[in-house]
């Protein structure tokens, strides 16, 4: 008995069609939550910064980060206001993940 999210991978296909490529890109994901969307492109990005104001959800993202990709991802408990106050550089792609 279980829940399966987007087994058809419509989200992944849409991301691929819209982002063109994530290869070597520096990406900011706003509202990354548990990292569900992040895992879909992290292996291709150069570096990903995920932010979310919900600490509990973000702690799941940290815990679930694949060990081989840990050096490519960082997560911060913050909304975009707080993050933009002390940004760590600029980004090739910003994803607003259901966060507006």
């Amino acid at each position, binding site marked *: 008995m279980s829940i399966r999210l987007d087994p058809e991978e419509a989200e992944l296909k849409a991301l691929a069609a819209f982002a063109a490529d994530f290869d070597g890109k520096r990406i900011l994901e706003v509202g990354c939550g548990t990292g569900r969307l992040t895992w879909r492109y992290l292996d291709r990005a150069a570096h990903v910064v995920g932010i979310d104001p919900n600490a509990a959800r973000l702690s799941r993202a940290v815990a679930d980060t694949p060990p081989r990709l840990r050096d490519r991802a960082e997560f911060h408990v913050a909304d975009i206001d707080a993050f933009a106050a002390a940004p760590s550089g600029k980004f090739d792609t910003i*994803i607003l993940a259901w966060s507006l």
Partner: protein
Amino acid sequence: MEPSGMVHALELARQLLLPNGRLLDLHPTGEPPPIEIRMGTEISRVGFLRETDDFVEYGLADAAVARVIREGLFVIEKSDQYSFDIHADGLEELLSYLAEEWTDAVIDDDIVKRIESLLSSSETDKEIILRDRIYIARLRPG
């Protein structure tokens, strides 16, 4: 988020983007998500999930994006929609998932009864499918 907060978030995103960067916006369209039951190869629509307030925010998000485009902050390159489907083996699993992840979602009692009735059949290959329409857009700095 308030409408002014959404516009502000888009302004901050613009500041954080490289000049040739791209912004991807993904959010639900606000259309009521249909709930279906699949029994083998047969799919029956039993009703729609009702949201108490999130759908209002999705409309406001559309308005905020439209505003920053009007003001020249971003140019929209392309947009589309896709279906983000949630498959549940049973009603209990679906309700538990919604309670945790989609807190303003309501499945009305008459729909619950229809789901329970269909799932009580002897068919073993069956599931509930919730289909959420998602808007996706790619924007570049204006």
